[in-house]
C-alpha cells in the first residue's frame, strides 16, 4: 500500500518507479488487484495523458522513443500500459547468456529508424549479428538464389537481434529521454470513447470526467483499478490485441495449417550468411546470431512439429542437418536452365553473387536452447484507426515469418504514426481526430497489405509440390539469381527501403 502511494508521487520518473514496484513485479495481475482493494485512488479520479500506449512491447516502446525524439512531440505526456513485469525492472542481460530463440531480423530501414531515435547504440552493446549474404533454395534441386548486400550497393542485408535485446534497448532509450511517461504494470480491462458533443455549460469545466463524457478523452480501465484518460489510445498490444477487440475493429485472416519450431543452435564455425530452404511442408531458416550461434525457424505442419519438439536432441539435430542438406531432395545445380545464359539479354550488369556457387550451410553441432512451437496465422485489421484509437504492429497485422518482415512492418508503423502526430501538432490538431489518424492508415495500410500478400503468395506457392509449379519456382529462383535489376529490387524491398513501384 505504501509502495503504491510512493509510486504515485514519483509518477513521471520511471527510474525511481522501478524500485517501489519490485515487490509487485512477479505477481500475476490478480494478486495486484486484490491487494489494492482499498487503494487510496479516489473514485473517478484518473490520470490524464496525451497518449496512452497499450502494450509496452518492441513496437509500443519504439513509438514512445520516436515521440521522444521529435521536437514537436517530446513534450507529450505518455502512459504505457503493460502487465509485463520486465518493464518495471532494470533489465540486465548478461553477455554469457545463451541466445534466446525468439529473435527478429531487422532490416536496414529499421536499423536507420533505431539510429534516428537513438536506440541502436543500446542494441550494439549486446549480441547482434549483421549478415550480408543470403541463400534461398528449395528441395527440388532445380535452382537457388544467392543474395549479397553488395548487389544493391549496401553493406548489410539485415541484422539478427534477440527480441529481449531489442526490448531492453528500447526501454533504456526511452528512459534516458525527457519524455514524461508513466508505466502502468497492469492489463487493460475496458475502454470507452464517447461521441463528441458540445458542452452544455457556458463556463468551462475541464475535469477529466466532463472531458470524457463529451468525447474529448478516452477512458481506459485497468485490472488494478486505475483509470487512465487519454486523448489518443495506441493499440500496440500484439496479435491478440485487446484494444483492437474493445474498439470493435474487424479482422480478416486465416490460420496457416503450419506451426513454427524455433530454437538456438551452435556450430563449430562462424556463420555469416542467412539460409532459407523451402521444404515440402514449409521453409527452414538458419539465421546467424553471432558467436557461432544461429537461430532456426522451421515451419511445418502441426503433427510433425509436436513430433520434432519431443524427440531427443540428437535426433532433432540430425533432422535439422538433414533438412538443410540432402533431406527431401538433391542439391541444386545450375544445369537445368543453364548458367543463366538464357537471361543474358536481360541481365544488365551482372551482380557479384550471380557467380557464387551453391553452398551447403554449416553443420549444426549442438542445441543451445529449448525448442518452442508457435502456430502461424495471417491476420489483418480492416481499419487501423477510429476516433481516438489507432493500431500499430501486430495488433494491426500478423504475417508469416518466412521473410522475417513482421516486426519491421510494426516499426514502420511506429515511425509513421509519430510523424503524423507531429504534423498534427504542428497545425494545432486534436491528436485523437479521426481525419489525422486516417492519414496514418492511408500511409501504412497499402504497404502492409502488399507485403502480406507477397508473403502469403510465397507461402502458398511454396507449399505445393507439383511438377510444373516446381519448374516455375525454379525459374523464379534463377530469375532472381541472374537478373540483377530484379535482385536489386528484391533486396531493396526486403530491406524496407522502397515500396513496390505501385506505390512510389
Amino acid at each position, binding site marked *: 500500500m505504501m509502495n503504491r502511494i510512493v509510486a504515485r508521487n514519483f509518477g513521471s520518473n520511471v527510474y525511481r518507479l522501478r524500485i517501489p514496484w519490485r515487490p509487485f513485479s512477479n505477481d500475476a495481475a490478480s494478486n495486484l488487484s486484490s491487494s489494492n482493494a482499498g487503494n487510496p485512488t479516489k473514485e473517478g479520479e484518473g490520470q490524464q495523458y496525451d497518449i496512452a500506449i497499450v502494450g509496452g512491447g518492441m513496437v509500443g516502446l519504439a513509438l514512445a522513443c520516436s515521440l521522444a525524439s521529435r521536437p514537436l512531440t517530446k513534450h507529450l505526456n505518455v502512459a504505457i500500459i503493460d502487465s509485463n513485469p520486465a518493464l518495471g525492472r532494470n533489465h540486465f542481460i548478461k553477455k554469457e547468456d545463451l541466445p534466446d530463440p525468439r529473435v527478429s531480423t531487422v532490416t536496414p530501414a529499421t536499423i536507420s529508424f533505431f539510429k534516428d531515435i537513438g536506440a541502436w547504440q543500446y542494441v550494439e552493446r549486446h549480441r547482434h549479428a549483421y549478415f550480408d549474404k543470403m541463400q534461398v533454395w528449395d528441395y527440388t534441386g532445380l535452382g537457388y538464389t544467392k543474395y549479397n548486400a553488395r548487389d544493391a550497393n549496401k553493406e548489410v542485408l539485415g541484422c539478427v537481434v534477440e527480441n529481449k535485446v531489442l526490448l531492453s534497448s528500447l526501454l533504456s532509450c526511452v528512459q534516458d529521454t525527457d519524455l514524461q511517461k508513466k508505466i502502468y504494470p497492469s492489463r487493460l480491462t475496458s475502454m470507452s470513447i464517447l461521441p463528441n458533443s458540445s458542452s452544455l455549460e*457556458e463556463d468551462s469545466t475541464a475535469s477529466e470526467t466532463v472531458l470524457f463524457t*463529451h468525447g474529448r478523452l478516452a477512458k481506459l480501465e485497468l485490472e488494478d483499478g486505475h483509470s487512465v484518460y487519454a486523448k489518443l489510445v495506441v493499440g500496440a498490444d500484439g496479435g491478440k490485441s485487446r484494444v483492437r477487440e474493445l474498439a470493435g475493429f474487424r479482422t480478416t485472416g486465416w490460420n496457416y495449417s503450419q506451426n513454427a519450431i524455433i530454437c538456438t543452435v551452435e556450430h563449430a564455425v562462424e556463420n555469416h550468411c542467412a539460409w532459407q530452404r523451402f521444404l515440402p511442408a514449409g521453409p527452414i531458416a538458419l539465421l546467424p546470431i553471432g558467436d557461432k550461434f544461429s537461430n532456426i525457424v522451421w515451419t511445418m505442419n502441426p503433427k510433425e512439429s509436436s513430433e520434432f519438439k519431443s524427440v531427443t536432441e540428437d535426433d532433432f539435430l540430425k533432422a535439422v542437418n538433414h533438412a538443410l542438406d540432402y533431406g527431401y531432395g538433391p542439391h541444386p545445380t545450375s544445369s537445368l536452365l543453364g548458367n543463366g545464359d538464357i537471361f543474358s539479354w536481360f541481365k544488365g550488369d551482372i551482380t557479384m553473387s550471380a557467380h557464387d556457387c551453391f553452398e551447403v550451410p554449416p553443420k549444426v553441432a549442438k542445441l543451445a536452447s529449448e525448442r518452442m512451437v508457435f502456430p502461424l496465422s495471417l491476420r489483418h485489421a480492416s481499419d487501423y484507426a477510429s476516433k481516438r484509437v489507432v493500431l500499430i504492429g501486430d495488433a494491426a497485422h500478423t504475417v508469416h515469418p518466412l521473410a522475417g518482415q513482421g516486426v519491421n512492418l510494426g516499426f514502420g508503423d511506429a515511425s509513421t504514426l509519430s510523424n503524423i502526430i507531429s504534423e498534427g501538432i504542428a497545425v*494545432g490538431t486534436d491528436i485523437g481526430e479521426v481525419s489525422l489518424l486516417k492519414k496514418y492508415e492511408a500511409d501504412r495500410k497499402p504497404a502492409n497489405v502488399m507485403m502480406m500478400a507477397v508473403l502469403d503468395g510465397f507461402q502458398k506457392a511454396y507449399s505445393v509440390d507439383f511438377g510444373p509449379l516446381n519448374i516455375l519456382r525454379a525459374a523464379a529462383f534463377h530469375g532472381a539469381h541472374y537478373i540483377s535489376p530484379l535482385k536489386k529490387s528484391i533486396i531493396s524491398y526486403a530491406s524496407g527501403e522502397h515500396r513496390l513501384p505501385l506505390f512510389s
Partner: protein
Amino acid sequence: MASSKLLSQPRWFRFLPRNLSNVRLFSDLPSQLPVSEPQNSIESKSNNRFSKPSSTPSSLKEPELAKFSAIADTWWDSEGPFKPLHIMNPTRLAFIRSTLCRHFGKDPLCARPFEGLRIIDVGCGGGILSEPLARMGAAVTGIDAVEKNIKIARLHANLDPTTSTIEYCCTTAEKLVDEQRKFDAVVALEVIEHVADPAEFCKSLAALTVHEGATVVSTINRSMRSYATAIVAAEYLLQWNLYGYYPWNKHDIAVASELPKGTHEWSSFLTPEELTMILKRASIDVKEMAGFVYNPLTGRWSLSDDISVNFIAFGTKEN
C-alpha cells in the same frame, strides 16, 4: 454598381447589418436573443439585432443551450455536412504557421510557436480556425456577425482547456476598429468574398493590425477555372461558398436552394492582383501568396503555386 446589385439580393452577408432577410432564414431562432449588457460601454450604433457586441450570452436557458449544443455537434463533425471545410483546414493552418513563424521570428519546431501573439480570427464561424491557433499558443479572439456561430464556437471550445481561453464576440471588424482593438495578426479566411465593400473591409483589417503586424486573407479567385468549379460542384460548393457556418435544417436548405448559385457571387470575387491592390491601399504589403489545390484521388488539399481557384495571401502592415 456592383455593391448595390448585390445588396438587392437576399444574400448571406455576414457583415451587412442592413440585410434583415437573414432573420427569416433562421426560422428556429428566437427573434430577440436575450443578451447581457455589453461589458464595455460602447453602444452599438446600428439597430440590427445581429451586431450587438457581446462576449458571452449568459442568460440562455437550458433547452436553448441543448439545441445549440446539438447544432454545434453537426457543425464540428468532421465527417458531417461541413466536411470540405474540415479537410481544408490543416492546409490553411500550415500556411499561416509558416508565414507567421517566419515573420515573428518564432521557432517552427516549437509545439506552441504562437505563444505571446494576439490573433483575431475574423469570420470565425464555429471556431474551426480559432481552436488550432489557440492550441498553437496564441491568445485568440474570434468574431462573427452571426450569433449562432459564436454560440456554437463557445460551447465547443469550452471543453478543451487549451481552447477555453478563446474570446468569442458577436461583432464586426468595423466595430472592433471603433473600440480601437489591436492584434499582432489579423486573419480573415474566406470572408472577403461576402463583404459588400472589400476595400473598406481591408481598411478595417489593417486598422486592427498593429504596426508591423501580419494580415492573412484567403478567398476565391475570379477566374474561369473557379467559375467552372463552381458550376460543376454547385450543390456542394453552395454550402461551402456560403461558408457553411450556418447550421442546416430542412427549412434552411429549402430556402438556400432558391438562392442564386455561384454565378452571381462569382462576379464579386477578387483576383489576386485586385486583392493585393486593395490591401496595398490599406497599407498592407502582400509578401506571400499561395494556392490551394485539391487532389480528388487522395482526398487531400495541398499548398501550391496554383492560385487560380482558392488562394491565400499574407501581408504585413507598414506605415
